[in-house]
């Protein structure tokens, strides 16, 4: 960085900051108090002035679960192919719900907070990160319900199950944040992004073995497509959740594909790559956020 004014040549530049230039996601840690307040603002104001309040967070997933369970489990007969189908369904659906809510919110968050972005400088990464954390907060009670049901079925956690669940969580959160930052920053100049994201979300439920078993995919697709299907971070996360919650109470002798952990690790690597690319694109577009909003 060279200054044009010769009078400033002797200046020690290390003492100066360039306004508006942040450190990406690292800034989020430095501003964690604000992050906490932003998350609290979202969770506290979401159900203001509604009589049922937080119950709405359960009504939607419960209704969705009921529809899928009755139609797929009873009518189509999935229940006969997959043991404890209700548990199988529920442990997958909560992952997809987390992804859907986090992805959709983080895509819109910059536009929703335009009044702040345009007027005050703060690390803009805070917004997508807060959006993903808010969806995680809504996800926790669903895990609670799942745990209670699992215990009822005689579920006892082991180290590998807890490991699988944590690995799945890291995968899906990194994936969600990465995609959210990518499409969220594109959404600033082009609002088309949020419509495109809705389209992606429509597919999300179906490109992972939530409503059916991975074996059905393996039966009809060629091997290379099955591989792609199995390393997709949503599939690996759903499978890891099945591994942690459903498989222990199932007697299926071959519930998962061979090389299950390899797929899981590749899924994680893809997620981290997506996060990296998302941050890169976000940084590239960030200088123009304030004027494009």
């Amino acid at each position, binding site marked *: 960085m060279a*200054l*044009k*004014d010769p009078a400033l040549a002797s*200046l020690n530049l290390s003492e100066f900051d360039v306004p508006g*230039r942040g450190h990406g996601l690292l800034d989020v840690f430095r*501003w964690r108090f*604000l992050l906490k307040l932003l998350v609290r603002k979202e969770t506290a*104001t979401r159900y203001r002035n509604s009589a049922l309040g937080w119950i709405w967070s359960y009504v939607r997933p419960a209704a969705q679960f009921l529809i899928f369970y009755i139609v797929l489990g009873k009518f189509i007969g999935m229940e006969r192919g997959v043991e404890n189908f209700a548990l199988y369904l529920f442990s997958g659906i909560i992952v997809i719900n987390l992804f859907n809510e986090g992805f959709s919110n983080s895509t819109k968050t910059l536009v929703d907070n335009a009044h702040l972005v345009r007027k*005050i400088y703060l690390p803009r990464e805070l917004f997508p990160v807060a959006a993903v954390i808010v969806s995680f907060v809504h996800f926790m009670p669903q895990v609670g319900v799942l745990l209670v049901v699992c215990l009822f079925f005689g579920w006892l956690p082991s180290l590998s199950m807890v490991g699988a669940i944590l690995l799945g969580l890291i995968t899906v959160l990194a994936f969600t944040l990465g995609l959210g930052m990518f499409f969220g920053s594109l959404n600033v100049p*082009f609002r088309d992004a949020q419509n495109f994201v809705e389209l992606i979300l429509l597919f999300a439920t179906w490109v992972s073995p939530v409503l059916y078993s991975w074996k059905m995919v393996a039966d009809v697709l060629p091997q290379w497509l099955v591989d792609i299907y199995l390393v997709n971070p949503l599939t690996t996360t759903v499978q890891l959740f099945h591994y942690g919650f459903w498989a222990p109470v199932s007697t299926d002798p071959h519930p998962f594909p061979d090389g299950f952990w390899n797929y899981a690790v590749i899924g994680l690597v893809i997620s981290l790559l997506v996060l990296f690319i998302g941050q890169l694109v976000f940084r590239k577009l960030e200088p123009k956020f304030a004027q494009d909003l």
Partner: protein
Amino acid sequence: MSADDTALKSMPALVVDAVSKRFHLKHTHSLKETFIAWTKRKQLRSDFTALEDITFTVPEGQSVAVMGYNGSGKSTLLKLMSGVLRPDSGTLLTRGRVAGLIEVGAGFHPDLTGRENVYLNAAILGMKEHEIDQVFDDIVQFAEIEEFLDQEVKHYSSGMFMRLAFSVAIHVRLDILLVDEILSVGDAPFREKCRMKFEEMLEAEKTMVVVSHDMEMVRELCSRGIVIKKGKLRFDGAIDEAIAYLQSEAYLKD
């Protein structure tokens, strides 16, 4: 000792070096429109130069007024200093914490209480939790809203709202203060209190950059005036001369 050396004897708090800012005015608002305009070979955007090659430095503890008619680029300059916008070319450097009395209350949420909003906004302005704890009582006292502290801000009168927003902004710990059109807030006693607060800051040797059309206030607060017109720096000197220049024929010409 040459003139340059004296100027740099105290380290500047703010350096503006050959800064330019252009805005692209987009004529399309979606991918579809962009594509259609592109196929029809229509112009996709036009450029507008808001600031052109601005250079000056502000020594620590100095208070500078940026003056000019509407649309001259004053607010853009302030936004560049705060980091909301970034220059297209040139370098802008700041030393120490920058805070702005710009759009106070931007971060307020109507559904949160006064107390929650104080914390949220102070954090948005870059304060840490323990720092807010320290000045919390001062903020509330300055705004004179003690009894409404735990009510939702949407029930506040506009005067109360602005007083609280202003009070939060003015209690942020800072080294450089950016001010855009102040003291239009509140009634006469509150304005007097704000003026006192500014004088306190001047005495504490805070660096200030003030944008205002209020010549009397500017004359009182600032020792130096910078006049810009249509994005170009036209005058830089003592405040009285700057005000005289702004009101002279020379400014109106070309």
